[in-house]
């Protein structure tokens, strides 16, 4: 069994990501928490948000990196994040808001076997991947 992805995108989310990339260039995601539009993934032009040592790199959505605060991941890590889209209106400075669609983080609980596999991987911090991504993403 392969190590499962920590974050995945639904087909609808991939379609929206591609449309946003055509318009805005390379992208990035950061999982928000807290009030109002919190608990939603935020999508920015690549490099707009400074992912730092306090963040973890969870993987990519159609090639676009996805970060989450390390402390938040402590309590989210037992679930796989499934990024979907719903009709919606606004949310911080996330790029998709004017399209009338909104990214939404759904979830599924990892099995014990999956969690054991995930525990064998060390996650990179935001400051460890940022430069490589900027170089790769152009």
């Amino acid at each position, binding site marked *: 069994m392969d190590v499962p992805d920590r974050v995945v995108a639904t087909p609808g989310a991939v379609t929206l990501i591609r449309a946003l990339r055509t318009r805005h260039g390379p992208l990035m995601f950061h999982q928000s928490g807290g009030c109002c539009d919190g608990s939603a993934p935020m999508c920015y032009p690549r490099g707009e948000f400074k992912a730092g040592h306090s963040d973890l790199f969870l993987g990519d959505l159609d090639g676009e990196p996805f970060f989450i605060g390390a402390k938040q991941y402590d309590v989210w890590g037992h679930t796989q994040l499934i990024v979907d889209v719903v009709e919606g209106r606004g949310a911080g400075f996330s790029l998709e*808001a004017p399209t009338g669609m909104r990214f939404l983080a759904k979830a599924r609980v990892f099995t014990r076997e999956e969690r054991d596999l995930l525990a064998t991987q060390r996650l990179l911090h935001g400051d460890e991947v940022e430069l490589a991504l900027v170089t790769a993403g152009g």
Partner: protein
Amino acid sequence: MTVYKAPHTSGAKVKFESRYQNYIGGAFKAPRKEQYFENISPVNGKPFCEVARSTAEDVEAALDAAHRAAPAWGKTAPAKRAEILNKIADRMEQNLEMLALVETWDNGKPIRETLAADLPLAIDHFRYFASCIRAQEGTCAELDDNTVAYHFKEPLGVIAQIIPWNFPLLMAAWKLAPALAAGNAVVLKPAEQTPAGISVWAHLVGDLLPPGVLNIVHGFGVEAGKPLASSDRVAKVAFTGETTTGRLIMQYASENIVPVTLELGGKSPNLFFADIFDKSDDYADKAMEGFAMFALNQGEVCTCPSRALVDKKILGQFRERAVERVKNHAVPGNPLDTDTTVGAQASKDQLEKILSYIDIGKKEGAEVLLGGARAELEGDLAGGYYVQPTIFSGDNRMRVFQEEIFGPVVSMTSFDGFDDAIQIANDTLYGLGAGVWTRDGNTAYRAGRAIQAGRVWTNCYHLYPAHAAFGGYKQSGMGRETHAMMLNHYQQTKNLLVSYDPKPMGFF
């Protein structure tokens, strides 16, 4: 019981304009790109007006107007500024019912709450800061016989404010009243989910302020909020919202070296010690009401008491009474009916997010004691965004205990003794609000001091009076609103260090 007529129906107390513009320099102005977005009422899921979809050009125009107005406003006598704030409050009070209905239609919350809480609190907020600014004094210190340090309070200049959609007018009042009282000009970006109430309000009170002192720019965060928050022409940014945007705003502010105040939400614990049930009296009843407060404003409150921590000695009885209480007293219904206690969630995506969290809670193995699904209302309300108040029972490390759902969802768990209660209460990323319920004053005091949160309601919950400081510990943000100390967040300190010694120092 009164059921208000829906806006635009015969005999309604509110008729919205078909289109709302930006408010810049004392006039309503179309956005430069002449784009608009539809504003939807969560009551029925239908659009009811269009609103300016602004861009950086509109933000710049608003900043121009604010910079023109700020110097004179900053030098306007505090008594005069206070008089204007009081007039704003008076005019809101004269139109309270109309504004309450506007707010209900824009946000979806029950009219009972806008009539009894949102509007009266917003009105009082202007009066409170009118009083504070008149009473504020600088200081002077006599450093020695010849040397005096004077400290004057000066306005910062032009302030950017970005406010949320859960209490649109009240959050505007929380931000605007201290900033304006302190002598600043403001550019305000309302939430795109609830732009109508603030527009109606600006039509109502705009003429009371000199042109340019208050500017309102509507639109989406990425198109209007970002140019405002990242502008090098603002002296301070105030924001209420979520953590990622809060960090981004700090990042922009670091580029401009300007201060920020941030209110970023929480996951507030509500602690119930065993002695609440020592007697069956009004107090026990009040404590259960305190539990049910998670459903207030449909749970769309940064301090929603969304984690109920219950002494294991009373858990069985508590669960029973809690379910009974919520089942009977927190039922989604027509927001225009004064008997309704739970209205609509503010937007479609908010509804979806809440439902996805309910789903996560179930998958994590939390037990659903009540609710757990969308509330399907009938007739005109069928398209609205309603959720059944939901009670989960589970473990504090579950995600439904750790993330702000911003819906009528509470997660209940038990504790074993005082230390365990405090450990669970503080096992969270956030620290905005908390509740403590006990008949024992010593326990209440010790718990209140031990919980890492900016406000600990003790034998009460969800009171928001002016003159009690509100703000967060940990990831809940920084700054303290709703108190005179907020003036400091909108002011510079000028020190004049003066020598009255006629003789030289003798150094050179």
